[in-house]
């Protein structure tokens, strides 16, 4: 081949319009648009809430009265304490559930991994309020199945489990939150090459020591990330506390806020009352940054990794036993009870052949006009939300990671900020900002999808940022120096490399969106009802049979979609057995 320097045409085919345009990156305009969208979604409702908290209800004049009202009442203060207690308890328990199982699946030879994974997934797609109902059926102090079993076995006068208590609520919420911890820790552990552990083993450290001193510390950011998400989920949850805390006669912040929205609606006081949650979450965010620091966690630089499993010997059965115990709590027990109710004429009558019926399902699918619409709505809205959230989050994560604009950390903060606000309050903010004219989005699908997108932006962002962080910047630089712009780099290299991670992130948004209640409850109109709100309405009148049937429908469809999703993601194409 000749060494001639015949210049090839400049890539992109564009002539130089002028020095100034040539010097600008063409994608800059896109980034600015995205930033504007972020401001619209996150900043505007938040600002409305903050401003409202200082406003008098009718006149809009500046006042501190809302804060005085909100915090002057001992009962309301107690609600804040309860929320924190709930959050801490849930985070701790979710960690205790999630981390060992993630480790066992990722790094050891524990048997039945597929089954455990399936159960964890089941816990993930179960809405917390559905789990709560299952647990009410299981552990109601007089009527719960577990208690009845206990009473029958020991002859005691009353049961030992009381789901209507703070510990009860913590367990109920933790078993649906621990999948978050599991997912984060499992993916992180999957990236750790066995060489790290080999190095420790050669120096004489046994399995446990290596795990605690080497393996787990490597994934500390993931663990912390998972715990923080569990905490924040728990304090913002509405459905499960409404079902359990109310009969237990205590309030958490979300149920208390619900009261502020009874008639007459007191948005301003609610705004003031949501402030502690805001502050707590900001602190959490700061804490996470401080712990992780500026250490880079680039674990993938174009070379695949290699993983070997740790042999546990007889201990693997103990490990499986623990995993099974958690799965029983999270999925097997509640689902069994709910299934029984779904097929029962009257669930209180227990398992008997004459109590079996399909009527609940036929009623829902063919007679109840709302149910069909609700089912379709749920999945359409959730899908739209997932695409919107991932798209936006990835773009913002890219802008932040590559430092395309000054103050990019502020963008990251904005993406994470929706965590801060209890879903209920976020919904109110959206309602206050966009429901009335000029946008007049009340009762439309748009306001619901926008609110959902905002709500799930933090999850989408965390996943996207983690995915981006794990890809070396040089991959993209190689594209750029060869003539491709940033967008080409994203399309041809980043997106394919992130494919698996993005698909996972999509599901990570889609599935919680299908079960989302707290923000939906204020934003649905009669034509945009979703399954979660319907379930909640049904629980109001205690129609557990139909409720269980609807819950079953929700779960079946979600599982199907997720299963399809996993097939599409395909095998891990980056690690091929070669050398």
């Amino acid at each position, binding site marked *: 081949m000749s060494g001639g320097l015949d210049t090839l045409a400049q890539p992109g085919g564009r002539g130089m319009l002028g020095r100034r345009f040539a010097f600008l990156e063409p994608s800059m305009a896109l980034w600015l648009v995205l930033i504007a969208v972020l401001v619209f979604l996150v900043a505007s409702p938040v600002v409305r809430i903050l401003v409202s908290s200082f406003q008098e209800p009718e006149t809009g004049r500046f006042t501190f009265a809302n804060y005085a009202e909100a915090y002057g009442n001992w009962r309301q203060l107690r609600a804040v304490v309860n929320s924190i207690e709930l959050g801490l308890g849930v985070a701790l328990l979710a960690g205790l559930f999630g981390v060992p199982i993630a480790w066992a699946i990722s790094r050891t030879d524990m048997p039945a991994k597929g089954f455990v994974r399936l159960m964890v997934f089941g816990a993930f797609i179960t809405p917390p309020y559905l789990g709560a109902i299952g647990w009410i059926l299981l552990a109601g102090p007089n*009527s719960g199945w577990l208690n009845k079993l206990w009473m029958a076995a020991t002859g005691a006068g009353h049961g030992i489990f009381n789901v209507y208590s703070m510990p009860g609520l913590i367990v109920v919420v933790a078993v649906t939150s621990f999948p978050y911890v599991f997912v984060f820790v499992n993916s992180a552990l999957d990236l750790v090459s066995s060489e790290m552990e080999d190095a420790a083993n050669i120096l004489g450290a046994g399995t446990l020591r290596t795990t605690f001193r080497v393996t787990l510390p490597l994934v500390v950011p993931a663990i912390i990330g998972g715990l923080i998400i569990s905490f924040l989920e728990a304090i913002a949850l509405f459905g499960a506390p409404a079902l359990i805390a109310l009969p237990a006669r205590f309030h958490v912040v979300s149920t208390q806020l619900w009261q502020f929205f009874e*008639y007459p609606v007191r948005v301003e006081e609610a705004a003031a009352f949501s402030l502690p949650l805001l502050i707590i979450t900001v602190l959490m965010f700061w804490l996470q940054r401080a712990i992780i620091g500026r250490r880079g966690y680039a674990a993938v630089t174009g070379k695949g990794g290699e993983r070997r499993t740790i042999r546990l010997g007889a201990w693997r059965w103990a490990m499986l036993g623990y995993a099974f115990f958690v799965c029983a709590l999270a999925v097997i027990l509640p689902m069994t009870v709910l299934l029984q109710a779904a097929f029962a004429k009257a669930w209180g009558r227990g398992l008997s052949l004459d109590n079996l019926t399909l009527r609940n399902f036929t*009623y829902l699918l063919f*007679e109840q006009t709302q149910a069909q619409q609700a089912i379709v709505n749920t999945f359409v809205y959730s899908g739209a939300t997932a695409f919107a959230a991932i798209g936006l989050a990835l773009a913002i994560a890219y802008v932040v990671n590559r430092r395309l604009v000054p103050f990019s950390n502020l963008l990251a903060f904005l993406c994470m900020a929706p965590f801060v606000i209890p879903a209920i309050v976020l919904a109110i903010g959206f309602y206050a900002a966009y429901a*009335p004219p000029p946008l007049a989005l009340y009762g439309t699908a748009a306001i619901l999808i926008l609110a959902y997108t905002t709500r799930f932006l933090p999850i989408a962002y965390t996943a996207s940022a983690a995915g981006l962080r794990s890809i070396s910047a040089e991959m993209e630089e190689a594209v750029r120096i060869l003539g491709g712009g940033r967008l080409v780099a994203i399309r041809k290299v980043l997106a394919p490399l992130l494919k698996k991670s993005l698909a996972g992130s999509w599901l990570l948004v889609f599935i919680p969106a299908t079960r989302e209640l707290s923000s939906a409850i204020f934003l649905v109109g009669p034509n945009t009802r979703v399954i979660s709100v319907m379930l909640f309405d049904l629980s*109001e*009148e205690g*129609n557990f049979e139909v409720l269980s049937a609807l819950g079953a429908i929700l779960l079946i469809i979600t599982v199907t979609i997720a299963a399809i999703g996993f097939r599409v993601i395909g095998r891990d194409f980056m690690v091929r057995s070669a050398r």
Partner: protein
Amino acid sequence: MIGHFASRRDILKGGAGIAALGIGALAPRSASAAEMTAREKELYAAAKQEGSLTWYTAHYDDQTAQSLGRMFEQLYPGIKVSVVRTTAQVAFQRVSQEIKAGAMQVDLLSTTDIGHYVYLKDKALLEKYVPDNAGRVLEIYKNYDPDGFYFVTSAGMVAMGYNTTKLAATDAPKNWTDLIDARWKDKVSLGHPGFSGYVGTWVVTMRKLYGWQFFDKLAANNPQIGRSIVDTVTMLNAGERVVSAGPVAATMESAQRGNPLAMIYPTDGAVLIVAPSGIMKGVKHPNAARLFMEYLMSAEASKIQVDRFGETMRPEVSPAPGVVAAKDVKTIRPTVDEIFKGIPEVIKQWRDTFGV
């Protein structure tokens, strides 16, 4: 029509159901029957143009509400009914939100808290419409609002329910005041006035009869507090609690399905709840709403209600044999004004006494 499965099978089922309970072999009327009044025809024509109706109701449980909606669709083909069943306060709150947003989704509002209507009428948010059927209902349900902005379309009673497997009839409480007896500790099930209009009215009545000390003492018995008054049925069914202050219609309907429940009518009187409906101003389908209002006060609607152990609105429709109706027992009822002022008050007092 897409999205709504009014098949021939369902019509037959509906008819068969009514026949099975021996109510009477009155065949369902169809729109083409000559029995439609002139006003009805006029309304139907206009409503058909509108094409659909959104109904927020707290008057019944979900299944009853759905049945009423379906029957309407069969009687007046071409009008789709969107039935949204919630508790009274939730329905009212949604309507308030819609008013504030200036975007009415609801057409007809049916809550169980008559105080809502006093408020709405006061703020000129209701539309005046006097149904033809207004003059054909039972006397006790007439003339709640002489100005014609709202009308009673359903009624029900709150009495004491109990689980028959856990309690013999002889041991059951006889009167409301029995509930504060220490032997019912951990055994009582209630709803919450902050959600349910039925419970709100019951609490106002109890306060009127016995003073608030009644509830202070009741709190000492650690009752289970749900949200809707229908929650009490679930709690009794589950065996979680043994006695309730519960709705007669839902409790008896559940018993009929095979659950171990029975009802006690207190000696001081069961509380009679009259639940009105009203058409909001500026709604999207006003004619459909009017037609529906007529329908709710018609014989067909009363048949369905009676079919599900509710009260009948019409004198010509009698309850099922063996079923207790309001006219058969002693009932007590607070005045509209007492309800209007009392419910917000008792909600506050309840929170202080019960902590939630």
